[in-house]
């Protein structure tokens, strides 16, 4: 790993990556999502002979009714956190800034291309990422898509009589199918893709606590968000009236 001598001395320095509001939202989001998955999968499997284990899970919860209540409580939290996030995005400066940072850009396409070539061994360097990598943006927008679908279809299943009144074309069966299918996609993405990227990849295994304290090390900044790092350094040096470090570009 190439590093400048100036930075090496300050390697242990931590950067505040996520603010409190962001972390609260994330915590509520993952708590509700995990609750929904844990209760939703057995609910979906109940009554299907090939998934007889689901009965044991239901028994653990007491009854299918209890499980439904917990699932709906999780859904209510998810709906609240979605509203919270929308308000945060619209009404706070931090939210608007983060949202703008998360918007897909032309650079993301070139980053995907460069990274793919890098994975294939055709390039020797990774792309330089800004505040959000393309796969973090993917995570964010996947949750957006997922929440819209899961909440929408979940409400159809929760209030079928209201749904048939206002959206008669959106049948219960359609809602159930989309709800289950999207849940599978979301759960697989969460446990395989997201968990690998943030917890299980070799540089972070066995996990990171960024979701808790919101801080990342200089090393992580240099590796995953080098452009943001230099942006911060430039801002710092400007504010101190110093000359900017000429070292920039790619890291390994």
């Amino acid at each position, binding site marked *: 790993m190439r590093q400048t001598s100036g930075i090496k001395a300050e390697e242990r320095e931590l950067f505040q990556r996520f603010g409190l509001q962001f972390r609260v939202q994330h915590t509520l989001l993952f708590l509700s999502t995990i609750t929904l998955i844990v209760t939703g999968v057995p609910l979906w499997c109940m*009554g299907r002979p090939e998934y007889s284990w689901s009965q044991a899970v239901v028994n653990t919860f007491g009854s299918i009714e209890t499980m439904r209540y917990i699932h709906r409580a999780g859904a209510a939290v998810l709906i609240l956190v979605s509203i919270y996030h929308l308000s945060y995005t619209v009404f706070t400066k931090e939210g608007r800034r983060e949202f703008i940072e998360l918007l897909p850009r032309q650079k993301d396409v070139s980053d995907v291309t460069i*990274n793919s070539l890098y994975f294939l061994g055709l390039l020797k360097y990774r792309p330089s990422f800004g505040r959000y990598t393309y796969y973090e943006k993917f995570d964010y927008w996947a949750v957006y898509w997922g929440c819209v679908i899961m909440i929408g279809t979940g409400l159809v299943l929760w209030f079928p009589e209201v749904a048939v009144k206002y959206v008669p074309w959106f*049948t219960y069966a*359609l809602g*159930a*199918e989309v709800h289950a299918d999207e849940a599978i996609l979301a759960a697989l993405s969460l446990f395989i*893709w997201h968990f*690998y990227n943030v917890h299980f990849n070799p540089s972070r295994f066995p996990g990171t606590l960024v979701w808790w304290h919101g801080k990342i090390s200089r090393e992580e900044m240099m590796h995953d968000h080098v452009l943001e790092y230099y942006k911060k350094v430039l801002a710092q040096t400007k504010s101190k009236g110093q000359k900017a470090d000429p070292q920039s570009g790619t890291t390994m």
Partner: protein
Amino acid sequence: MKKETVATVGLILAFFTSIYAQEGQELLGDRSDGSRAISVHLIPLYAENNDREKGEQIEPGAEFAMPFSTHWTCGECHSYELVKNGWHFNSVDSNVPPGRPGEPWLYFAPKLCIQIPLSYRQWPGTFRPAQVGLTEFQFTRIFGRHTPGGGPGEMQATEVDEIGRQFVSGTLEINCLACHNAHHGQDMGGPGGYAVQVSRQNFRWAAAASCEFASVKGSAAAVTETYDPFLPDPDEKNAPRVTYQKEAFNENNEVLLQIVREVPNQRCYYCHSDLCYSQPEKAEKWASDEDIHLTAGLKCVDCHRNGVEHNIVRGYAEESANSSNPLAATSSCEGCHLSEGKDQPQAGRLGAPVPKHTGLPPIHLKKLTCTACHSGPWPGKKTILTKTSRAHRLGTPNVNKAQEVLPHIVSPVFARQGGQPQAQLGDGLAGKIAPHKVIWPAYWGILEDDQVKPIALGVVEKVVGKVFADLELPATGDWPKITKEKIIEALKALSPAAAGEAVYVAGGKLYRLNDSGELAEDLDHPAAAPYMWPIAHNVRPAAQSLGARRCEDCHSPEASFFFGKVCVDSPVQAKDGVFREMMDMYEVDGPVYVRVNWFFKLLIIGVMTLLILHIMGDLYRRVMLLLAKRAK
């Protein structure tokens, strides 16, 4: 002149007045006085004379006793002419609205590869017996066993060779005892009972033979048509003869009949039983559950009601459009369970629970009949073979008890209900979806102007019987398997005999010879469409209705309601074991959610493949870097 005119007019008026008075005359038993007690029927029995009028009173000790006639015995106190207009007896009256399609009479001949639905009622998809060359006399001989008499059984023969035979056999009068005799000795299907007498052409003797105090020997079919049953020949040993138990008669030659106003269930079951081979362990009747209404204590006649005119309520939702029975509108499922009633509460009749259908989108009640969720055997992955009394002679001697015995009725099949007036549905909805019993017609016909007319059974038997002479008939009573070559041979033989283009219909297909003499198949020909009639019973408890546990009973990619396999029954080799998807039967495209399911399946596979490749690429580069580092 004036006096003559007045006298003539007076005579004419007197004549019509007398006719009116005669027709309108109310007999003793035509109207109840309101008592719910059993009316004791200690009555004399009367025979019919050779003028088809009231004959002598039956004397049990007479050397050549005649069978009693229900027409003249029961008709003493109940207007027979009124009764014969009832639903069970009026099928031959073309003025009677056919109403919702019901169970047809299924004529089948394994040797000729025929099973064809017949009915005197104009139910689309059925054929009138005359269309296949069956006279009323022949029809009665074949199917009269499971009728309460009357209808075609009382029609006068018109064919020359049948007029004499009918003089011997008599007509099959309405057998009042078939339904109203509560005595356990009422024998409809026993070795000497009603069904056997009908098969022996002992129509005149059938009702007497069915009761507990008379027995009949001999056969009208076994004597010549010149035999006179009113002047019996003691030397004619084969002639039908009735013997009465003398102890059943009192000193006035009266008999105490155990007649009940309300027909016991057991009497209905003789003609209205069915057997579904849903699960091997439930193949026997004792192992199956019964209709929840019966379990709750109701009787058949609690819903299927009628007065002396015998215009019985069939019990389907839109029946009042076809029936003059005032209870028709309120004796359906909705009538007792849902209908509010105009002047007084209707729902909850007879203790019927009023369903709340909590959480059930109302669209279900618009698109489905009540029976769709609540009646019939629980739908499995594929349809099952079903037997009925009338189709399989249940309850009569020497019934083939094999599961595969013809005719092949498959159920439950969810399909759009026919015969439902479009105007009653509104909202542009076609008939509601209901569970049905289905039969795939198999018959030989003539194609004219793209219409198929069945060829008379006599012609088919003569021509096709010869071609199929070497066909092996399975002991199970199942179809023999016919090859396409055999069909070609039969069609070539039939065309000249039937004077037209012969075709064969089976398994939803129409087979015909093309110009080069090869066998062509037409899949969509309307003549090959299955005949379906709705299932009303057995009604399952609410907790065992479709969707009571979970919506996925119907709304899942595995649900039988949409994706169950409907057996397409055919004797044609290589066409057996063919199935159609359930949703094809009610003519809908695959549900949207199935296409959505496929979209998501592809989406999940696509997205997860890319993400996992990304992870593997990342891991690969990390490993390569580590190895390079160690190498340095």
